């Protein structure tokens, strides 16, 4: 039975009105035909390709073009992007705000990337802050956080969180005795700071829908940091316990909130960490391959049970 036949029946039985029937029948016939996904993918890819091409052109031709032309061009693009966004954006609201147009989100994303290119060019050419990239990253993170919250933009929020992560990393690299352990501890600190900040912003009702972005980034950084501890030859037990604890937390969070990306993190990071310890002293190919077959089947069964119990699609 086709959807049109079903709609006809539902109309005859009074489940939907004639107006609803006419509207839904049109939608099911794909009238109008939606190109939203294709346009979004093209816009996103277009912005990335354009900025990559711009960066490449500037790095190759900056001598011939001259600093004045390059900076004028970049500043003009930056000003145009910000003018467009500030003039078109609706009044700020702490709740989720719909984008005023299809291209709006991509214009602010484009502007943010142009800002990064211009800043990199300025520092490379004029050494304004004597190579102190961490200060640039911190200032950029601040700007991107402002833009992300002003214009309700997940792309720019991801850039802000990445810049903040870069600042953490570069700050540690300036220390006299930076080691893997220091990076690991600060990666954990970063994930905690990001997670707590996201939770606080959600608690105070500031763009609650952006909490997922914070949580996903914090979870991935935390898992990578814990995994790097598990991969050590010595003193890995504490990290393994921490990893298992984080996996348990991620699993419970994912199942209770029906956010299955966290179930996936728990399964993959947990499996990688646990397997790395179990197979590191196995020297027989047969044992290693048997391990993957047996544990793979066990994981598959567990995941199918989870999928049937919690993750069934309507």
């Amino acid at each position, binding site marked *: *039975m*086709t*959807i049109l036949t*079903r709609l006809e029946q*539902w109309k005859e039985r009074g*489940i*939907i009105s004639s107006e*609803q029937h006419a*509207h*839904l029948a049109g*939608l*099911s016939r794909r009238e109008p035909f939606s190109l939203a996904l294709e346009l979004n993918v093209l816009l996103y890819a277009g912005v990335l390709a354009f900025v990559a091409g711009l960066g490449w052109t500037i790095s190759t031709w900056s001598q011939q073009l001259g600093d004045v032309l390059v900076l004028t061009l970049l500043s003009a693009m930056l000003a145009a992007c910000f003018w467009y966004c500030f003039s078109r954006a609706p009044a700020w609201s702490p709740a989720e705000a719909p984008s005023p147009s299809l291209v709006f989100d991509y214009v602010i994303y484009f502007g943010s990337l142009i800002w990064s290119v211009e800043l990199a060019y300025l520092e490379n050419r004029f050494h304004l802050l004597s190579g102190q990239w961490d200060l640039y990253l911190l200032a950029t993170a601040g700007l991107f956080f402002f833009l992300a919250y002003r214009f309700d933009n997940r792309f720019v929020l991801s850039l802000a969180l990445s810049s903040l992560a870069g600042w953490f990393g570069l700050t540690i690299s300036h220390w006299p005795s930076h080691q893997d352990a220091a990076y690991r501890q600060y990666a954990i600190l970063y994930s905690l700071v990001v997670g707590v900040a996201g939770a606080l912003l959600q608690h105070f009702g500031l763009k609650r829908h952006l909490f997922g972005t914070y949580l996903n980034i914090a979870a991935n950084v935390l898992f990578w940091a814990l995994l790097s501890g598990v991969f050590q030859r010595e003193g890995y037990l504490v990290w393994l316990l921490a990893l298992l604890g984080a996996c348990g937390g991620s699993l419970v969070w994912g199942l209770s909130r029906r956010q*299955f*990306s966290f*179930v*996936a993190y728990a*399964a*993959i990071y947990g499996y990688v960490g646990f397997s790395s310890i179990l197979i590191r002293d196995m020297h027989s*190919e*047969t044992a290693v*391959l*048997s391990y*993957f*077959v047996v544990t*793979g*089947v066990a*994981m*598959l069964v567990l*995941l*199918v049970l*989870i*999928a*049937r119990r919690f*993750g*069934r*699609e*309507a």
Partner: protein
Amino acid sequence: MRAYSASSEEALRTRNLLKDWVGEGFLAEPQYQRMEQETVCELRRTNIFLRLVLFLFTLIIEGAAVALFFVVFLSRPAVQTTGIFLLIFAAISYVAAELAVSRAHLYRYGIEEALAACSVGFLCAGIQAALFGGRSYSPSPSGAEFLVPAAGAIASLWMWRRFGFPYAFLAAMIFILWMPGYWTLTHSAQHLIVASLYAAALITAVTVRSRHR
């Protein structure tokens, strides 16, 4: 030709549309509940994240099981022997994908997708090893080795037609990219051949589609 019945796929499409419409406010929740109850679908689906993880673990199991077979039962086999066994594993993998769909009613569940993907991979590796021995991959205009990407393209198209995996069509297009490398060394000629093959496929698709409108 489709592994899924038209009624099942239509019911699935209806459920998806109902979900979209209630999300967009075109239907009230009580209307949605009532309509959804009448569009029962036997196919088992899961969400995208579990689907990806199920795909990954199925790949791990299958890869490890095949490698284990070679380690345990065949010590230093000839390349042709390896190729023949890989072709057998491709067949087993494909049958398993069919069974996962027909018996377990899996639909975009990750497991049947990984089995189908493995069958294409084993098929290509098997043909390469069985027919062309241990020669490493080296595109040259003299060889009949274009059969490897050709088989991959045909198998991918079959998966697309049979199971409806959209990415299988993309895989077929990528396999086609490799084929002209076996016919000519000139890059311009290779690009021309690929463009001609894509254009021919596009014209065929448009013609077939217009007949079914």
